[in-house]
């Protein structure tokens, strides 16, 4: 029974590798797994060869997946857009909550405008930094412009609302967008540094 389970696992892993890996590495990885399996089977027996195969196949999956993400343009672009949008969405929610809190607070009129802006920009900066960092660690080459534009589009309605409600000067509108771009740029520096260390 045990042998059958490992056989099923072996086939599942083989198929996973086949599906996940890119054309550039697929054949070589599968050939080497097969060659290694046969080699160990002759030297140490069937059970050892199976163990080796499972361990090798399992440990190869993350590398193959990351390589697929990094080398496939449309997946990279999608990941960039999704993560950038997620970062901007978090920023928009935080901006909305912050603005609403200040508007609904009876002390709102006593709250300095620069404080509202500072908190808003910090939120936008932090979420762009976090989103960009995750995106860059996985994809290495995101499309900054797309991410920044999505961030700007998601944030703009909140700021228009804030302008109408709080009479914020229209000239402060680009500030959170600048904060997002700064966050993304900084995340690039951080992830490049981490990427080198991880290699």
């Amino acid at each position, binding site marked *: 029974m045990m042998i059958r389970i490992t056989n099923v696992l072996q086939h599942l892993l083989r198929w996973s590798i086949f599906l996940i890996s890119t054309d550039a590495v697929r054949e070589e990885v599968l*050939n080497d797994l097969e060659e290694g399996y046969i080699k160990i089977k002759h030297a140490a027996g069937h059970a050892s060869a199976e163990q080796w195969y499972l361990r*090798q196949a399992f440990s*190869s999956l993350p590398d*193959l997946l990351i*390589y697929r993400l990094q080398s496939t343009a449309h997946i990279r672009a999608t990941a960039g857009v999704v993560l950038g949008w997620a970062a901007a969405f978090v920023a928009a929610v935080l901006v909305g909550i912050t603005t609403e809190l200040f508007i609904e607070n009876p002390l709102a009129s006593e709250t300095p405008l620069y404080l509202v802006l500072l908190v808003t920009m910090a939120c936008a900066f932090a979420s762009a930094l976090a989103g960009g960092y995750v995106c860059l660690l996985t994809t290495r080459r995101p499309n900054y412009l797309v991410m920044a534009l999505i961030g700007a589009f998601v944030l703009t309605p909140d700021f228009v609302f804030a302008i109408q409600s709080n009479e914020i000067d229209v000239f402060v509108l680009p500030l959170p967008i600048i904060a997002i771009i700064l966050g993304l740029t900084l995340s690039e520096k951080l992830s490049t540094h981490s990427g*080198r260390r991880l290699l």
Partner: protein
Amino acid sequence: MASNRLGDFEFAVLTAILRLGPQSYGVAIREDIETQTGRMVSIGALYTTLRRLEAKKLVKSKFGTSTPRRGGRAKRFYSIEPLGRKAVKDTLLTMQRAIGGVQTI
């Protein structure tokens, strides 16, 4: 200069190719690194690294003749390019500079 910086694993792969010479193909490189470093090398990590090194023009590859051992499939042999040799030398120099002046560890 920045592009010549190698990671630990890239360095191990390139030095294995240098050691193995014309016999450098996937299985041999993996076994060599495992022998030299004493740690398990995943096949996925090896081939993705080899592709990256090829993209950076640090190594090149060509198919050999097919053997019955691999079910008639040809092996892909790797050799180091001049840029790869330079990258290994640069990395070694960086390591030597980094450890310079250290009396005891």
